[in-house]
């Protein structure tokens, strides 16, 4: 963990200092009349102070035996595809509408990440789109975008 503790603690320290500087600009006020910046200023200072033990500990300890990396055996393709497909969903949802976008999302998730067969992914995606439309739009009256084709 040592290497990662070093990185994260430096990030927290930087974040704490940034927040403190930002809060100082927001005006701290006085104790009798605390301003908008007082609380975040104290929090920023506390954050950079309390991340210092993590930093010190990671500098002082040596990893004795080689640990298995936390990234070993990880399929990065999937790890990137899931957030990417969700962002893609967000990007085209209001243009293409609920039905089309949801179908595409589900198909990508079932086929590529879930490694299912083509036929299975197609049928299941279509089925889930239908059921989710009935559940959310028809039953729960959630307003989802119609998109340029007017379906959804």
């Amino acid at each position, binding site marked *: 963990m040592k290497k990662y503790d070093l990185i994260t603690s430096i990030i927290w320290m930087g974040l704490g200092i940034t927040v403190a500087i930002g809060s100082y600009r*927001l005006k701290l006020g006085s104790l009798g*009349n605390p*301003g908008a910046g007082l609380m975040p200023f104290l929090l920023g200072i506390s954050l950079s102070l309390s991340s210092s*033990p993590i930093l010190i500990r990671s500098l*002082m300890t040596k990893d004795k035996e080689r640990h298995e990396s*936390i990234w070993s055996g990880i399929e990065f393709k999937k790890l990137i595809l*899931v957030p990417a497909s969700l962002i893609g969903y967000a990007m085209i949802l209001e243009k293409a509408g609920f039905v089309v976008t949801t179908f595409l999302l589900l198909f990508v*998730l079932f086929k590529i990440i879930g490694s299912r067969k083509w036929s299975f992914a197609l049928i299941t995606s279509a089925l889930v789109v239908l059921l989710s439309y009935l559940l959310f739009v028809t039953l*729960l*009256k959630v307003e989802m975008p119609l998109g340029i084709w007017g379906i959804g």
Partner: protein
Amino acid sequence: MDIFSGLMSGFQVVLQPINFLYCFTGVFVGTLIGVLPGIGPTGTMAILLPSTFGVSPTAGIIMLAGIYYGAMYGGSTTSILVNIPGEAASVVTCLDGYQMARKGRAGPALGISAMGSFIGGTLSIIGLMFFVYTLAEVALRFGPPEYFGVMCLGMTTVIYLAKGSLIKSLVMALIGLIMGCVGTDAISGKLRFTLGISDLWDGIDLIPLVMGLFGVSEVLINIEKTLKTQRVVFETRVKNLLPSLEDWKRSIGPILRGSVIGFFLGIIPGGGAITSSFVSYSVEKKISKHPEEFGKGAIEGVAGPETANNAATGGAFVPLLALGFPPSSVMAILLGAFIIHGITPGPMLIIKNPDVFWGTIASMYIGNGMLLILNLPLIGLWVQVLKVPYSILFPLILLFTVIGCYSVDNRIFDILMMVFFGIIGYLFTKFEYEPAPLIMAFILGPMLERSFRQSLIMSNGNLSIFFIRPIAAVALALAIALYASIALGVFRKARVKVTEIQE
């Protein structure tokens, strides 16, 4: 209103068809996600929070509460039949529950966990009623300094009891507090840390944050390695669900002790269902006449922890309903739900919204009864659910999060926030940072800041206001003592490490 007539009015509320339906939906969904590993009550409650906007606050709260205690029932099924905890609070149940199943005693194991859960659940609701009532009376006299003190103490215990490194939990809590500052400052009207994004003027929204940290990140953790297409479910037919007289004789002690342990640990901020199940298990093992049977299928090792984790759900409601303080991340979401519905939990809740208060409590009696039926005669249904592979499950989870997140405000920005926090949450888990303190601090942040600034205005800037008022002083002193012991602990750990290197 006294407790009895209050409870009676509560039952009238729950028996209205819409509330009854939402109670059933809650416990049903709770059992479902309890049975399914890879999705927990925190994420589910966040996902379903938007779907409660259209109904009355009472119905919404009843459903969300049902998800929480329902998940505790469902979690044991997976532990016993598959040796994988369906829920974090059912980890210990794997030890003896699975062994019982291997010996062909899956039936009694499932039976006693449902019975124990029912007994623990109902006993803790009785405790909950009395404690909330008394505590709320005291809390009515709280001013800003008292609230500040109690919230500080609560946050400190959360950090203290969080799993993993204490200092990392502290860092998480501080980040949560800072994130709570984002948006328009309630007192001065200034914009803080909005980074020029107008969607952040109202602050970071709770729903995308929780869905990201507990929904999306859980999916990422589960899919990072190759998916197994099928889980191995223990395929013996589950029969004889009713425990024998001998089973009952051995279990009644653990069940009663588990109820007490669970209830009180549930009240403590940061304690909760997981801790109480572990404590119950070790207590039972310690006082047992035959501790060697533990781990080899001792029914006590199932009855105690399963009762305790259910009793803890009742206890957890005490600080939330009496003080407006959430003792766990699940309760923080429930607090968020209260706030979204325009209700402030706390001492005034019983007076101002008696229907919500008593309705919720009465719904827990009804819900526990429903769960007993759902989990005993209908156990076969959940065994089938267990066979659903994760490669089918996770697209559905993601779809629900996206729709839920978008439907709150019809904002694309919320989906992007959710994905962002999903990635952050995944990295937190990889680098061993626990997200629970962050969520709780995030919810408490604005309240903490308000009480802090109001106290200072009250005292004209004199910090002694926190130390001359007895309740505030005691709470803050305890918090400081806990921090001191954290500091010493860190020092000690560092020292041990140094000596290790020198050797």
